[in-house]
């Protein structure tokens, strides 16, 4: 088991030990606060060993040539977090009943304090997340980062892409205006147009042969409970594999050859 490297703190932040005879006996309130914080963190760390996990995940070696394209995954993650937080708070005002949904969405936009802003974040954030996940996928593809041993992470990423589409589709119905209603009718009929099992899938999604009383709440449950849970779990797996396998160098970086090998060839 190799020893994990200590976090590379800059010199300025490393506390220097006190010289003998300096500040003897005087303990300030700040010292107490620092000591209490350190004690609390130590108490947790002694019982969980989480600092090792944190160091393992955060202080990884990354290849030469790592650049801004490598931040697209984190950007997608933050788009998801923003969707999760704004979504939870939108749920406090939204009412998923076919007769009340449109009015409650209008209440959020027009009357709730900062409602227009939070709803706007959720609406535009959805588009941003889809765009970012595609850019992240393109980066992975063009840098060849899906190759051995990272194939499984690519597969998990594709599952996350599909789940993001499911979020976009189910969320589109929730404002319950004309556009979202008919778009959902069309999406549902596309689902039902698959041979043999399509008709049953369509009925399952719609909770019956017609767009009915529970279709909206069904979409709502899928949108805010089932799929976000699955996405969060898969993001955990995705990040675990990133930390475990490390990132790839960009394709234009050439591996430095061992000089000894060069001599042998000559």
């Amino acid at each position, binding site marked *: 088991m190799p020893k994990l490297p200590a976090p590379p703190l800059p010199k300025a932040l490393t506390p220097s030990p006190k010289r003998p005879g300096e500040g003897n006996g005087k303990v300030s309130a700040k010292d107490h606060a620092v000591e209490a914080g350190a004690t609390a963190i130590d108490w947790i760390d002694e019982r969980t060993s989480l600092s090792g996990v944190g160091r393992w995940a955060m202080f990884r070696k990354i290849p030469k040539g790592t650049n801004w394209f490598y931040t697209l995954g984190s950007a997608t993650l933050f788009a998801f977090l923003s969707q999760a937080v704004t979504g939870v708070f939108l749920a406090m005002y939204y009412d998923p009943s*076919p*007769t009340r949904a449109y009015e409650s969405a209008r209440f959020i936009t027009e009357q709730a304090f900062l409602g227009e802003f939070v709803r706007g974040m959720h609406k535009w954030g959805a588009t941003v997340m889809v765009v970012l996940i595609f850019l992240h996928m393109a980066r992975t593809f063009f840098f060849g980062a899906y190759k051995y041993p990272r194939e499984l992470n690519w597969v998990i990423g594709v599952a996350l892409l599909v789940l993001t589409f499911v979020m976009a589709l189910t969320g589109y119905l929730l404002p*319950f205006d004309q556009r979202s*209603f*008919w778009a959902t*009718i*069309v999406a*549902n*009929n*596309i689902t*039902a*147009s698959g*041979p*043999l099992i*399509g*008709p*049953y899938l*369509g*009925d*399952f999604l719609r*909770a*019956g*042969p*017609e*767009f*009915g*009383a*529970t279709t909206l709440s069904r979409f709502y449950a899928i949108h805010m409970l089932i799929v976000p849970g699955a996405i969060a779990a898969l993001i955990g797996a995705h990040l675990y594999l990133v930390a475990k396998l490390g990132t790839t160098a960009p394709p234009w970086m050439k591996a430095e050859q061992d000089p000894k090998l060069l001599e042998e060839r000559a």
Partner: protein
Amino acid sequence: MADDPRPTESKYTSERLIPGAFEGETVTRRRFMTGTVQVAGGVATAAFLLPALGFAIGPVFEKHHPTWQAVGSPREFPEDTYIPKVITIVQGIGQAGKTTTYVRKRNPRVDTDTPDQYNRYIAISTRCMHLGCPVRYVSAAQRFICPCHGGVYDFEGLVAGGPPVRPLDRFYTRIRNGQLEIGPRYSVNSQLRRFSPRDPAQPLDGIGQYLYPSRPTARKLPGT
């Protein structure tokens, strides 16, 4: 075969030096315990997962009883053009549960479907058979036109152009107490043969009726 490497004795014997193990024992206690715990866990998981899944897919198997709604006096409806009428297909969800149907009197010079007691008046569903957008009747062109992807249907509701895969659905009609009543939906193929109601985008000609099975919960009216 003097040096046969295979063990001559069963591994399920007292030679394992486990107290209480006996000759001929095929399942060790450890394996039995593991199996019991796994089965118990499986049963416990199934006990909450199966009812929850059944709860979620239950509406697919819910039976729907035909309802009839009066839309006006039969004299109201001419032979040569359609009168739009709004009917409720799902109760209790406000505007989302309503749909428009175009109604006219059956015209023997135009209509080619087999006449019976349920089509003396023709009620055409506005659900486009491409992907379910609402079509409207344009009387100048005598065509039904879909705003979404350009589906066009002729006066009888047969496909005249665009992507739809079958003619517009219809509703059963009947006359009760001097009122025209609109009944349950049925689907038709390009020969206007009746089928139990299907979703849009499901063709009913040729192999289509087998690729897109009907719902066991919504049938045609008996005898049609």
